[in-house]
């Protein structure tokens, strides 16, 4: 059988793993697909190549299709998310100078308490807290903004979220242009390894189940190539299931660290997959269960409520109309296509397309098509609960 070729773009990050595994471990081939993965130098270039048809699908920051739907960003061709590729996986770090100030003031760097860490960080800054994020439309930006505003930093003069491409973060920290940063792996670990930063918090401490990357396609592509979209979703779903098995860790690490992908030492890649971090150059180690998740608790399901949360956050951060943002955002997460693709395959497919976000404090059994879905903890650090607008 001749395989159907699909061009997929990715950014060299640990959470590109489901796409890399789908291509390398034969899951795509099982579905009659041949994935050509190409590395992109930036999120904006990845988006533009997808928008203008040089790519069929892409590894993308969950807020990017939503930003497009809100008319934000350079190119705004409608993009849709076929699935969530990963949940959580970012870390917040501080410059060594700020880290030393926080330590002197008694902060313990426990790496698990967003409230304490946030207050300590705010206390260590004299005027404006400047935080670097990889892209203006990213979970990094939304989670950092949610976190600090929840802690009472309201004035735009007191917080500045700036875009700094991760490879440039170390220089920006050293030059004192930013005080802190929020990045995906491997960038957090490598900043500790190179001695420019101390890690403060995994973003899962802010929101325990935050959609991080999505599998994005042009809205029109998904409709014109429904069968291909289904096969792609299934291949990625199987790859994610493989990634979630503990026995896959060694091989997954080795695959990701190869030259065409992350091109890094396996030890650095492994930190994220194990959730085990050296948080300072003094060698303090912290472990975070579920640091990044590809599969458990229906991680791949593109909940419309997740999209709406992102849309509303973006609206309040950038001063847009909330109701319109909520509606536009919801439509970009295609839970309908995902469900159709996996109806006969996945046993834990939710029967609803939206859920109350932040209400699960202990793993919770809920209704699903196969009757076996356990929703993992998804609480926000401040205990807030997000009720989605009924569709």
């Amino acid at each position, binding site marked *: 059988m001749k395989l159907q070729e699909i061009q997929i773009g990715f950014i060299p990050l640990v959470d590109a793993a489901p796409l890399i595994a789908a291509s390398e471990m034969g899951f795509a081939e099982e579905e009659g697909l041949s994935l050509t993965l190409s590395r992109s*130098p*930036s*999120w*904006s*270039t990845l988006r*533009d*190549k997808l928008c*203008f*048809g*040089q790519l069929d699908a892409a590894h993308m920051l969950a807020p990017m299709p939503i930003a497009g739907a809100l008319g*934000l*960003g*350079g*190119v*705004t061709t409608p993009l849709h998310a076929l699935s969530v590729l990963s949940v959580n996986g970012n870390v917040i770090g501080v410059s060594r100078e700020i880290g030393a100030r926080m330590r002197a003031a008694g902060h313990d760097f426990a790496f698990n308490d967003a409230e304490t860490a946030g207050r300590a960080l705010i206390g260590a800054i004299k005027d404006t807290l400047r935080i670097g994020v*990889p*892209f*203006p*439309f990213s979970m990094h930006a939304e989670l950092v903004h949610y976190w600090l505003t929840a802690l009472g930093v309201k004035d735009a003069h007191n917080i500045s979220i*700036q*875009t*700094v*491409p991760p*490879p*440039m973060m170390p*220089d*920006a920290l050293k*030059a004192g*242009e930013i005080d802190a940063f929020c990045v995906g792996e491997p960038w957090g670990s490598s900043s500790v390894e190179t001695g420019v930063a101390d890690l403060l918090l995994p973003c899962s401490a802010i929101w325990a189940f935050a959609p991080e990357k999505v599998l994005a396609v042009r809205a029109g592509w998904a409709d014109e190539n429904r069968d291909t979209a289904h096969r792609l979703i299934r291949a990625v779903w199987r790859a994610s299931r493989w990634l979630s098995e503990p026995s896959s860790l060694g091989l997954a690490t080795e695959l990701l660290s190869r030259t065409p992908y992350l091109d890094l030492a396996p030890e650095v890649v492994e930190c994220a997959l194990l959730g085990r971090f050296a948080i300072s150059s003094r060698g303090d180690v912290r472990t975070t269960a579920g640091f990044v998740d590809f599969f458990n608790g229906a991680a791949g399901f593109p909940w419309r409520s997740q999209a709406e949360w992102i849309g509303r956050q973006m609206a309040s951060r*950038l001063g847009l109309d909330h109701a319109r943002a909520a509606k536009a955002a919801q439509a970009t997460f295609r839970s309908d296509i995902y469900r159709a693709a996996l109806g006969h395959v996945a046993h834990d497919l939710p029967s609803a397309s939206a859920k109350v976000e932040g209400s699960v404090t202990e793993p919770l059994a809920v209704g699903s098509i196969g009757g076996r879905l356990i929703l993992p903890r998804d609480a926000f650090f401040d205990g807030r609960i997000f009720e989605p607008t009924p569709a």
Partner: protein
Amino acid sequence: MLYLPSDTFRNTPVTNDLAIILVEPDRDKANQIVDSLADAGFARIQVITEASSLKRQISAIDPDIVLIDIANPSRDMLEEMTIASQPMDRAVAVFVDRSDDALTSAAIEAGVSAYVVDGLRPDRVKPVLDAAIARFNVFQRMRTELAETKRALEERKVIARAKGLIMKAKGIDEDEAYALLRKAAMNQGKRLADVAEALVESAGLLA
């Protein structure tokens, strides 16, 4: 339309006094792009080579158009300009006009992107992009040529090594070894270089 005396502007019409910023760390490449733009009648061009504090540098110059290689990782910093955070900021969109997909698409294929101040008329921006696209197409061709030349060189090396291995193993001369290699390639329906590479690789295993 204003024509300046010959030579100075090479007889090109000055259609446009747009302030253009070019973000390009490679000085040679930057100079070539600036020349191309000058040929197209644009004189107000500033080059930024240093990516740090890119946003501050750009807002200090307050340009109409920012051009950047799409392979440049610092491009994501420019995306921030698409959000006009202050009322005084000029909103910026990527490319001429969101309706002009053909031009945008051509630019991306050539490898250049342009951030343009909102409200600027497409006919004022198009000549800038046309000139930039033409120049970037040349770069891309050069890159492909370089890659091809490199590959050809590598292949020649591998073929020479494979020939050497055959000569040694079979005690034959160079021409015979080459003939044998070519025959094997034809029989297998493969490229000469691929057969040679396979041979060199497996010989490495046996060594």
